[in-house]
């Protein structure tokens, strides 16, 4: 199955419905579409915003490599990944992954794999802006994210 890969790194919000349509509209060989949208949370009202820094050029290249790996491992017809950068306030979307396949398990696994690898390998860094204190900390990488990515490693 040939897989159409779409990668975008952008400051502006995205339209998940429009991206889904691009993967399914006008075709009758797609049986399953899984989308993941990651949002900025307010952490109990303490977070005012996140600012996402990224490495232009490498971000596109690395997410492209992750997507190629997913397309090689699962029978996908389409795979889209959009990652925003810049200042994002709670409730706004940060990242979208959409995977289309003839088989539901392939779509679920590819989308989950993409997210685990985006978290641990895509060159983005989140800085927090706390309510009432504009000087926040850089978010620390989580060991649980490394463990999640480790699940996909072949023996």
């Amino acid at each position: 199955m040939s897989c159409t890969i779409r990668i975008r790194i952008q400051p502006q919000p995205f339209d998940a419905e429009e991206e889904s349509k691009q993967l399914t509209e006008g075709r009758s060989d797609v049986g399953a579409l899984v989308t993941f949208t990651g949002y900025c949370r307010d952490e109990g009202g303490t977070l005012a915003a996140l600012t996402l820094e990224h490495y232009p050029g490498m971000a596109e290249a690395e997410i492209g490599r992750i997507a190629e790996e997913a397309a090689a491992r699962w029978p996908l017809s389409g795979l889209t990944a959009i990652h925003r950068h810049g200042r994002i306030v709670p409730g706004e979307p940060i990242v979208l992954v959409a995977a289309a396949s003839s088989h539901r398990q392939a779509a679920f696994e590819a989308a989950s794999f993409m997210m685990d690898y985006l978290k641990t390998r895509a060159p983005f860094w989140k800085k927090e802006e706390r309510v009432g204190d504009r000087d926040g900390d850089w978010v620390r990488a989580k060991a649980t994210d490394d463990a999640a990515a480790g699940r996909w490693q072949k023996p």
Partner: protein
Amino acid sequence: MSLELRYFAWVRERIGSPGESLDVPGEVTTVGDLISWLANKDEGYAAAFAEPDIIRAAIDHEHVEHDAALAGAKEVAFFPPMTGG
């Protein structure tokens, strides 16, 4: 050897610059060598590379380990563990 260096997140903040062009001496042959050499430049670099084990590196937009050779590299980037997604 002439290299384009790029710094991100708190590595960038501690060094006080998003990047620079540098000539590095011939004995600096690996990413790890480069980290040690940079850490001696001044207090900002020393703070950025105080815990070299947690510093991630990329050569020409690809992740590399600290034992990677610099030969042929154009752009070398240093940054903390990624927190995207």
